Every structure is written in C-alpha cells, then in structure tokens.
C-alpha cells in the first residue's frame, strides 16, 4: 500500500506543479533575457582593459550600495544620541532595559523565572512569563558577544544601539526580499527606501529600545523566507521561515499578523487555483514547526491551538490536507461523476466537522474568543466604546492622513503604482507582497502604531514602482543611444532594438520625455531623502523623557524634570515605598527610581488601573482610603501648567475618569464636565475642582506667576487661569516638585494620631 500512495503523490505533484509553474513563469523571460544579452555585450567591450567583468562590476556596485545603505540606516538613527545623549527613550523601553539588565546580571534562568514584586503592588508580575523575551535575549547576546571579544561596553549602549543595528539588518532583508519578488535592482531600491523611511525610523532610533525595533526585522525575514520557500518549494527555506517566525514570536505580539496573513495568502492562492506542492511544503512545514517553536515562548504558550486569533492558520492547515487528499482521490478515481459526489461529501463533512469543532471549542472555553485588541483592529470603533484602556493610548488612535504623509511621503503615491506593476506581473511572490501591502495598509489606517508594520510592504512595493519605472526609462534612453551609436554593428540586440525603435518612432520626444521623467523621479527621491532626514532629526529623535523647547532667544532649553524627580525618589524615599502614579510612568519609576509602583505600562490588570483612576478622580478623603488600602507612600503627578507641556496628567485625566468609571460606576464622566466640555478654570465642574488629581496638580499653583501680563495661577498648557487657587491638602503633603514643576511628588500622611 505505501508505495502506491507514494507514487500517486508524486504524480499529483507533477501535475499540479506543472500548471503552477506555467502560470508563474510566464512573466519573467522577457525581462531577464535582455539583461543577460546586454551584459554579454558589455563583457566583450571591456575585456581588453583591466576592468572587472560587468557581472563583477555589477556585484561590486551592488555590494557597495548595500553597504552604504546599511551604514546609512544605522547613522541616520543616531540623531537622538547626538542631540541628547545615549539614553533609553520613552516608557516601554525602560522596562525592556530593566529586564535586559536583569538578564545580563542574573542569567537566563533567573530571567525566565523572574517574579517582579516591584510592580503592580501588591499583585506582582511574573515578568518571565508575561513578556516577549526576544529583544532582551538579543541584546544580551550582543552584549555577551562583545564582552567575549573584549569590548568593555555597558549594557545600556548595547540597548540604545540595538534598534539601529536591526534596522540596518532589515535593509539587507529588504534587498533580498525585493530581489525575490521582483529583481535585484528593486531590492536595492527597497533597501534604500526602508533605510530612511520615517515610518520605520519612528520606532527604531537609537535609544528606542522596544520590541518593534527587532520585530520588524523578524517580520520581514519571516515573510522573505516564506516567499522564498513558496517559490522554491524547498524544505530548507520553509524550515528557515519557521525559525524566523519563532524569532518573531519571541520578539513581538505582532506575530499574530504573520499567523493570519500567511494563511490568508495561502487561501487566496488556493482559491485562485495556484495551489502547488511548493505551497503545500512551504506552508505545512512552516506552520507545524513554527507553531511548535512558538509554544516554547511562555507568554504565547498554547495560544496557537487555543486562541481564536490563531484558528485561521489551523483551518487553512486542515484545508491544505483536504486539498491534497482530494487531489489524490481525484487521481485514483477515473470516473468524474464519482469524484464530484465524493468531493461534495468530503467538503460537507469537513466543513461540518470544522464548524462543530470550533463551536464546541468556543462554547467550552477551550478556544478563547478574540481579544479586545484584535477586535479593535477589525472594527476601529470597538475600542472607543468598550475598552477605554486601549483607546486611551495615543499610538492606538486611528491614523490621520497627515501622519501617513509624514511617515511615507512619496511612497504614498508610489505604492499604488507599485501595485499596478505587481498586478501586471502576477506571481506567487507578487501576490504575497500585494496582500501584505493591502492588509497592512488597512491596519495602518486603524492604528497609528501599525504604520510600522505597513512600512516594509510600502517600501517594497514602491521600490518595485521606482525600479520598474527607472528601468523602463533608462532602457528607453539606452536603446536609443545604442541604436544611434552602434547602428548595425550590434546584431545580437537587433530584434529587440528594432522593436523598441518601432515603438520609439510612434512616440516623438520620447527621449526627452524619458529624461524629464527620470529627472522627475530623481527629484522626488531626493525630496524623499531630505524629508526623511528632516523628520528623523526633528520629530523622531526626541527621547520624551527629556523635553526640549526653544527659549525666548532661540536657544535650546532642556527640561530634565523626569529624571530629577525619579532621582529624588530614589534618594529620599524608603526602599520599599510604594509610588502611585498614572500607569504611563510606572516603567520609568521602577527602572529609574527603583521603587515599587501600583500600576505600570504593562496594562494587564484593568481593575488595578481603574482603582488608581478612581483614586485620582475621587475627593481627597475617599482617595485616601484607597491609597491606604494599597499602602501607597507617595503619589506622583505630571503637570505641565508651568512649562506648557501638554501631555500631562490633567490632559490625560478624562481617561482616568473613564477607565476608573468603567470598573467603579461611582465615578461618572459627566461629573467632571460642564456641558460636555472639559475645563479647569472657574467654570469647571465642582467635582473636577476638588478631585485629587486637580488638587495635586494645582497645589500652590495659584501663588505662581507663570506668564507676564497674566494673573497668578495661569495654566500655560491649557491657556486658562485655574479655578481653584486655594487648595488645602489634608491627607497628603507636598514632598517634592521639580524645577519646572513638571513632576510633583506628594507624601501620603499616616492616619491622624488622635482620631
């Protein structure tokens, strides 16, 4: 029996493969052929001199371009280091830095089993099981590697430079990916585009030590290896792509995108009749191995078999088997009618079984439903109505057109052009990139941060547009000149040239037009380069923990209040003091002040965050009860009223009210609004004027002159005079206010001695 099946299988393979090949190989020859011919010609010309062969020349050129792009991608991300210093940026990177530090100090097993009792007091957090360790392990490996090579670097420098390093590596992957889907010149252009694309730079400047910095590299690598596997049908490549996927899973939660896009792609190929054994091998190997590998990441665990988000991949996997089985049956059954009935029965039973399995799994709770984040991706309005904690994050907002323009610049209209080229030359690979481009563009529109995921696709597709256009135009110019130069001597290119010439004659001024168009392309590309550099240096290199502003005389003013406050906390509070702040500052407090926090940026426990939100939006005595329950020693608020820093706690306050009110209905948003308007001046709602957050932010602010010609207590961030200038604190006392009042720390008093 086994031999029979085997032979049947191979036959089927050939049959299916043949058709697939014929479709996929239709396009390339006309493009590939002239290039070879030309290089041959040039070879003969340059043989006499000591010059390199054209192929070698081209290789040298390609390698040097790639090298330059590699270096460029790295150094353009160093603006932040030059402008400020070698420091970790923003919020999440501080956690990553802290964990990396822990990993390098205590070793992998301690890291893996790390139970962090300094965050989420008193719940604690199993860090090892609730993070994607890819980034930390990568940085630690680099660190240990450098240490081994006797480079005495500090782990912070490694962390700061990890993202630029991986951005450089991404350019290489982009090159190979471009080469795989189009040709090597498109790959070069893609590498150059992605090296400086602001959409990517925003998450990978030096110091932005976040998962995404590594994950985009892993994402693109996985896709590239998978496409390579589909194109070759090789087990090796699909094995490699499974490992790429493993790395991606270990690095970022965005792997869900891969595990849904690839099955979708496979499904599209199946529907469009492009099923092939190459695809079968590539997908099955990648899926099964990738899944098994991904299960080794503690945070992911059994999600691949238990979570609704991963069910599509499994469904497609089974569908593949059914497809294969049907092929085999079709081969065995000569009777067509018999096969059709068989097909009908099989399809009905399979679909029925799958539906029952899914239904039972979901109903029994074995398969978890989709998470809120996933829903909010499919329905952009979902988070706003149901999960304020997701909607409150600025990077989860729907994308504005301007930020598309800002992040993509010319790629935004090169993208459709590239799609056109892709559709013109439809192969398995181009279908993939088209699907990647379209889906990721949709997600980019839903959430600002997902522009990052779309960036590689946009760069690749735009690169196809640029490369194809330039190539066409250059070819036009070259054939023309060749025709005029060489005349009849070049017999080899005769047929091609004449056909071109024929075309040429039909369109006058084509040469000039081509030159003009080429100049236009170069103008656009240079504009792109300047735009990218400007954006990088001006917008995306700010560490956000140190604020910079222009002073009255155009000089740069640095507000280093955050670190001042954290340092104060570290020096002046008991080591086991608990600090309550809004969750944004949690990671920074634990990493820099080394104090226990109640909530932090790992927003895993909504109730706990809501408790803090409730405390902040309650009256002082109610808040005091909550703070006593949580053993809070200090309260930290961020206040921008003196400096005009607008992303402070007063401006975030409505989210605290909403999140707090989502769990504790005593907190009602309308209590803090006046006619639906949020204000802090005299017309503000009474509850607003007396809630803890208001009191802590504006305590003694009424005595302060902030701006010339304005009354004391003029809030520069909101441009109004505050409504409650006479704030008395009963249970808290001011402990520290930074030099620009950006961070204010209050001490929670012990309960009254005599009452």
């Amino acid at each position, binding site marked *: 029996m086994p031999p029979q099946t085997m032979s049947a299988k191979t036959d089927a393979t050939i049959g299916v493969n043949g058709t697939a090949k014929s479709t996929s190989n239709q396009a390339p020859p006309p493009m590939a052929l002239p290039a070879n011919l030309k290089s041959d010609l040039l070879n003969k010309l340059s043989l006499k001199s000591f010059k390199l062969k054209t192929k070698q020349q081209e290789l040298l050129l390609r390698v040097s371009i790639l090298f330059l792009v590699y270096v460029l991608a790295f150094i353009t991300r160093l603006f932040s280091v030059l402008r400020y210093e070698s420091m970790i940026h923003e919020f999440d990177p501080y956690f990553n830095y802290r964990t990396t530090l822990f990993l390098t100090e205590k070793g992998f097993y301690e890291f893996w089993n790390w139970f962090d009792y300094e965050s989420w007091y008193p719940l604690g957090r199993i860090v090892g099981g609730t993070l994607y360790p890819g980034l930390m392990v990568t940085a630690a490996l680099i660190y240990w590697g450098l240490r081994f090579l006797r480079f005495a670097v500090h782990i912070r420098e490694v962390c700061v430079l990890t993202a630029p390093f991986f951005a450089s590596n991404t350019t290489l992957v982009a090159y190979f990916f471009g080469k795989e889907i189009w040709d090597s010149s498109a790959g070069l252009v893609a590498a150059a585009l992605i090296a400086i694309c602001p959409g990517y730079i925003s998450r990978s400047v030096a110091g932005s030590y976040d998962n995404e910095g590594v994950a985009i590299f892993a994402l693109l690598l996985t896709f590239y290896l998978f496409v390579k596997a589909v194109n070759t049908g090789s087990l090796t490549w699909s094995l490699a792509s499974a490992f790429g996927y493993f790395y991606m899973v270990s690095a970022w939660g965005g792997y869900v995108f891969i595990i849904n896009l690839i099955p979708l792609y496979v499904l599209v190929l199946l529907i469009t009749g492009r099923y092939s054994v190459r695809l079968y091998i590539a997908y099955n190997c990648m899926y099964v191995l990738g899944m098994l590998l991904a299960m080794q990441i503690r945070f992911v665990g059994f999600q691949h078999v238990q979570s609704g988000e991963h069910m599509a991949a499994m469904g497609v996997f089974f569908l593949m088997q059914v497809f294969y089985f049907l092929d085999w049956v079709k081969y065995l059954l000569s009777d067509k009618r018999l096969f059709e009935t068989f097909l009908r029965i099989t399809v009905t039973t399979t679909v029925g079984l799958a539906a029952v399995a899914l239904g039972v799994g979901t109903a029994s709770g074995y398969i978890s439903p989709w998470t809120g984040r996933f829903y909010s991706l499919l329905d952009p309005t979902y988070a706003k109505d149901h999960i304020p904690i997701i909607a409150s994050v600025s990077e989860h907002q729907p994308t504005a057109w301007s930020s598309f323009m800002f992040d993509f610049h010319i790629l935004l209209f090169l993208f459709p052009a590239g799609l056109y080229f892709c559709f013109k030359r439809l192969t398995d690979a181009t279908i993939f990139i088209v699907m990647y481009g379209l889906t990721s563009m949709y997600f980019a529109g839903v959430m600002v941060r997902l522009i990052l995921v779309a960036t590689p696709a946009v760069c690749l597709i735009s690169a196809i547009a640029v490369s194809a256009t330039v190539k066409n135009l250059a070819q036009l110019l070259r054939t023309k000149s060749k025709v005029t130069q060489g005349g009849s001597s070049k017999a080899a290119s005769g047929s091609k040239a004449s056909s071109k010439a024929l075309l040429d004659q039909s369109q006058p001024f084509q040469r000039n037009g081509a030159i003009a168009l080429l100049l236009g392309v170069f103008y656009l590309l240079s504009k792109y380069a300047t735009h990218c550099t400007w954006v990088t240096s001006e917008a995306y290199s700010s560490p956000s923990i140190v604020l910079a502003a222009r002073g009255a005389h155009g000089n740069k003013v640095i507000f280093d209040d955050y670190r001042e406050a954290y340092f104060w906390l570290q020096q002046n509070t008991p080591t086991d003091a608990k600090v309550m702040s809004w969750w944004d500052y949690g990671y920074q407090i634990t990493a820099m002040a080394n104090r226990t926090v109640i909530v932090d940026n790992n927003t895993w426990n909504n109730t706990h965050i809501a408790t803090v939100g409730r405390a902040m939006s309650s009256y002082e005595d109610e808040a005091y009860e909550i703070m006593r329950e949580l053993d809070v020693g200090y309260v930290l608020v961020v206040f921008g009223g003196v400096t005009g820093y607008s992303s402070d706690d007063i401006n975030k306050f409505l989210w605290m009210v909403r999140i707090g009110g989502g769990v504790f209905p005593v907190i009602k948003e309308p209590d803090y609004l006046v006619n639906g308007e949020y204000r802090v001046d005299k017309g503000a709602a009474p509850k607003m004027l007396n809630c803890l957050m208001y009191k802590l932010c504006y305590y003694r602010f009424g005595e302060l002159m902030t701006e010339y010609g304005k009354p004391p207590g003029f809030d520069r961030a909101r441009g109004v005079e505050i409504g409650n200038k006479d704030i008395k604190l009963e249970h808290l006392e001011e402990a520290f206010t930074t030099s620009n009042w950006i961070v204010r720390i209050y001490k929670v008093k012990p309960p009254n001695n*005599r009452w």
Partner: protein
Amino acid sequence: NEQLAIPQLRQSSYRHETPPTNPSRRCLHLGYFGGKRLHKISWSAPKPSPLTRSAPMAKLAIFFTLTLSLLPFLSHSFSPDTPTDRRILVLLDDFSLKSSHSIFFTSLKSRGFDLDFKLADDPKLSLQRYGQYLYDGLILFAPSVERFGGALDVAAVLDFVDSGHDLIVAADTTASDLIKSVATECGVDFDEDPSAMVIDHQGYAVSDVDGDHTLIAADELIRSDVILGKTKIEAPVLFKGIAHSLNAANTLALKVLSGSPSAYSANPSAKLSSPPSLTGSAISLVSVVQARNNARIMISGSLDLFSNRYMKSSVQKAGSPSKYEKSGNEQFVTEVSKWLFHERGHLKAGNLRHLKVGETGEPAMYRIKDDLEFYVDIFEWSGNSWEPYVADDVQVQFYMMSPYVLKTLSTDKKGLYHTSFKVPDVYGVFQFKVEYQKLGYTSLSLSKQIPVRPFRHNEYERFIPTAFPYYGASFTTMAGFFIFSVVYLYNK
C-alpha cells in the same frame, strides 16, 4: 556624556557626598522661569571634603556619643524600653489645688513620678527645650485658664501628645474655650452650653441637703481590668461637672465613666425650655483616648473628681440601700492614672520573624505552597519590668489586599508567639500582619512585607500520571515513524 543617563550608576558616588541625614546648609536660590522669578528653597549639597573630618571633629563626635549614651542613665525619662512616665508637669489655676487635691498628687509621687507644679499662666511655661520634651506627661488642672503662659498653646499641647506623651485634662463648669478646644482636638466634645452641668435625678448622690442633683454617684464604669485594675470599684464615683460626648468619627476614644440613662446635661438653675442636647448614656463623664502612637489622654468633666473632699466623703447613690464609707473616687483615679501613665496595659511586640520549615534564616521570598513558621515576641510592661504577655487571641494575617491566612498564635508563656501555615496558592506581595487591638492595651500593629513567587520552571512535578497517555502517544508516534521509514525504504 554619562551625565545623568542612569541614576543607578550615579547613586554610589553621590551617596558618599551627602550623608542624607545631614542636609547641613540651606540656601536660597532664585529660580527663573519664562522671565519670571520663582522663589525656591533648595538643599545644597555640602562639598565632599574628607579633610574636614579630622581629629577634633572625631573627638567631638566621641564626646557626643558618650554623652548621648549616658543620658538615659542620668535622667529617668520616658523611653520605649521603660514606658512608664517619670516627669509630669501639672498646670494649675492656682496653687490651692495642690493641697485640695493632694491625695491624688501624693499617690502619684509615691509611685515615683516627679511632679512639677506650675501656674497655667506662668510666663515661663514651656514643654520643651532645644527640641527635647522636658516632661513625659501633662496634667491640666486649670479648667478656667483662657490662655497658657509662655510658649504653650493648644498646638503645643497637641504636639506633645502627638509625640507620644500623656495628658490629663480636667474641666468643670468654668471650663474655658481653651480647655474645650484641647478636648475637641482629642475627639471629645464638651457640651456647648457654658452653664450646663450633668444632672441626674435618679443617680445623684444622697446628701444632707436636697440639692439640684448635680452631684452624681456614677457607677457606669467601663468593664476593663486593664484600665480600671483587677479590684472591682465597688463604691460609686462622685462626679460634679460638665458632660461631654465622644465624636462619632473618633474610634479611639472610650467612655470610662458614663452617665446613667437618666442623666442629662442642662443648666441646673434655669428652667429647661428645650430638650437637652446630651442625654443618657451618650454622656461621658470621664473618657480616655489612646492615640495611634499610644499616647494616652484622659478627659474628665469634673475637676472635683480628683479632689480630696470627694475621695474621702462617703457616698450613697439615690435609691440604693448600700452606703459606702468612702467613695470610689480614689480607687478610680488611681487606677486610671496607672493606666494612663503606662504602668499597666502597655505591650511591646517585636522581633517579627518567619522562616521556611526545615530552614534557618529568613528567606527574602517564599514560593507558593511553602510551609512556613512565624514567630513574634510580645511583652507587657508591668510597671518596672517587661513580663511575657500571655493571651490566646493574638492572630497573624497573611495579607494581600485581604487576609489569605488568618491564624491564632500559640504562646509558650515566655513571650514568644508562634504558628505555622502553608503559603496560599496565590503569588504576590504579601504581608505578615499582627493587628492586635484589645480594649485598654496598647494597640499593636506590625507588618512585614514578603513576596510570594510562583513555581520556577523546574519546580513543577516532572512525571504526572495524567500525562501518561501523552507520553505514550509521542513515543508510539516516534516508533511508528521509524518503522514506517524502515519499511518504506527497505521493503521494495
């Protein structure tokens, strides 16, 4: 360029520069912001100069440490080790009280207290000198004083209490606003009507003349051996004075002597036009407050309660057949003052420790389902030495937002309390909490933080029987694949 980037790195060097306990110099900085001046006071760190710590400084330091260590022996002052008060300031309206209340004062003196009598308006009055309190207790027998002399005021008295010292306040019909505000700050409100007195037409003390029934024979005493001593106070306590009530928000005050259900507070000479604001057992005649820092306060609505006259007089409660030769005043006052000045009911707990069963030394962290042992020492101050405290109601909580384990501790009668339990199957930051609040005793509130971690990756059970089908499946699959390969490859 490593100016500030990692605070942790800077920490070590910074610590040497500024001893955190000694922010020695203060200077005024003018901060500029946006063209405007802000006045700000900031601490300026002293320059790191190892040279200044030379020989003379060292000698001086040795001298000071010696003096400081000798100080406890030189003066018998109040300290955590000997909680009984020693030096007591008595503020009087006039010195005649010294003789009219001499029994009370003599009893205090005979118990070893140094009494310092002063007039309440003495211009040199001061409770502290150079930041050190001169007294351990304060007796305010000056109900009518409108303003204290010297540096003393309400805030100073309250600070005195808040730093752990004891206070007796006695008022009467002449009670000034000053005395009333002291009481109010301690959570006890005197009747606002200045002419009101406590009247009890049923519980009055029988006397020769049928008076206005303001002299009360009170016997509604708090049932607490700790406060009132083991010997029962048989005779009623004579009371003539004003009523007060406990503030509802105050959980720390106790009525030691309360009015009978028929008592009320009104002006005895005027006709009662409206119902009295304070009636029945809501009236407190004498109350005590034990503050959170265990300072003890006694507030009495009658100064005469302490007088020799009341102490010596015989008493018969109206409607009661038994007549006592001597009123309960002396016993009552003596016993309450014993409690008040920490001769009784003062507990000391400490040495909270815990360890994993079978190990020595305190772990920094527990794992879920660990077995642990918990110990705590509790001693009681007997007046001159620490004796083991014996009780069967001391409990320990293993607490994280709510108690997960609540266990009663067993004692070895030598002051050591012990229990053992299993850490619950919940990870997080727990606390060992001993919250012991027993009527009259010092409230004990100890806690120690201890994190509880989940299992490590290699602490789970390795081979569990329920997984045998899984092991079987994987090995049979492997074997099957091997056999299949062999058959397929070599069996053509």
